[in-house]
């Protein structure tokens, strides 16, 4: 269970959120909506333990998220791809960085899910924005973690891509995982499993 207790974040003199409390049960998703600059990304990073809140604490299953990195997968704005490496090398490196040992078959399966099997051997610099985002989805497929934190996951994705994202998320939720996503576009996630939080 993900829990945030009285978290406060400021940027300069502006207060992004003040004494915010939230709780997400396993198997449920939380969609964080709001205009640009409303603090969606900051909230996600606070939940991840990347950004220290000015006040308050975030716990996952009772422990601070900073200590629970083995159970969290974070997908930020940038896809963390090295232009010089191939798609496969990038994916393998990121999955191993997350602590997984990936077999050739697992990689093939993940790339197939996001329809990038053909680009496997190509350097990442040749990928379009949508394809880069799909590599992120493939990475998520390789990291079945208790908590997924996704920042604008549907950016640059076409309808097929959004469908793949929804499918991956649904599988994760069914397996008991928690997914929190910051988004300003509709994501087609199972409505009976998703709650919404609007930041202003």
């Amino acid at each position: 269970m993900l829990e945030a207790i009285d978290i406060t974040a400021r940027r300069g003199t502006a207060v992004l959120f003040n004494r915010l409390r939230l709780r997400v049960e396993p198997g449920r998703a939380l969609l964080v909506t709001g205009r640009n600059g409303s603090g969606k990304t900051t909230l996600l990073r606070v939940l991840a333990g990347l950004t220290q809140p000015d006040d308050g604490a975030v716990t996952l299953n009772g422990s601070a998220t900073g200590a629970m990195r083995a159970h969290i997968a974070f997908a930020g704005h940038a896809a963390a791809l090295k232009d010089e490496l191939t798609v496969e090398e990038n994916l393998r490196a990121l999955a191993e960085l997350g602590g997984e040992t990936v077999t050739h078959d697992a990689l093939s399966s993940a790339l197939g899910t996001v329809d990038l099997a053909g680009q496997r051997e190509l350097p990442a610099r040749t990928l379009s924005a949508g394809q880069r985002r799909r590599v992120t989805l493939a990475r998520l497929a390789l990291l079945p973690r208790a908590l997924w934190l996704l920042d604008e996951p549907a950016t640059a994705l076409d309808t097929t891509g959004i469908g793949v994202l929804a499918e991956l998320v649904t599988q994760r939720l069914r397996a008991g995982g928690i997914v929190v996503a910051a988004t300003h576009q509709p994501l087609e996630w199972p409505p009976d499993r998703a709650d919404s939080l609007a930041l202003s």
Partner: protein
Amino acid sequence: MSTVAATALNEPDHGVFSAIRWAVAHDLRVALRSRAELAVQLLFYVIVVSLFPLASSPDRALLAALGPGVLWVAALLASLLALPRLFASDFADGTLEQVAMSPYPLPALVGGKALAHWLTTGLPVVVLAPILGLQYALDADVLKVVVLALLIGTPILSLLGGIGAALTLGARGGGGLLALLILPLYVPVLIFGAGAADAFRAGLSVSPNMSLLGAALLVALVGAPFAMAAAVRIAID
């Protein structure tokens, strides 16, 4: 037996050694794909070392006195030149975020990055030094001292430089600010490192210099990864 083995296989190893191995393998793979960039940095080192005899008199005694110092200053400059590469691109493309979110200990990961930096910057300098030292009419024994001192000293430069590189992420001022921050830390290494050759040429023992360099390396090996990790977390906050 099978359950124990199964548990051991399923239990992911988030240890220090695996972290270092991942970081070195990843950074080396990326660096070796842009061999031109590495070659340019080495060429810079060669050019700097070769400029001094041209600018000063070709008097052999003078060159022999200058030689070790020039080799060291050039090694410093080469290290400084390559330092932004350590974290800047990872910071820009989101890799550093993923590194910070990794279950592997962050000091081990950044320590591995510093090791990869040394392998692509410091080690080539050490290998090239004897060849370039011939321009300065340095005899074989002096060159041995210089190479040994560089071998101990260049990793210190990569480790300390990594702290500066991490601290200046996202700060204005770029390379100039980095140089200003690192210089006070580099200067003692320079003094003791180049001083070893001077001591040798004066007929004194080199062991005080080498011991100090060795001690500095140990302190850097133990302390710098933690300082770098702290600086990285501050930068991505």
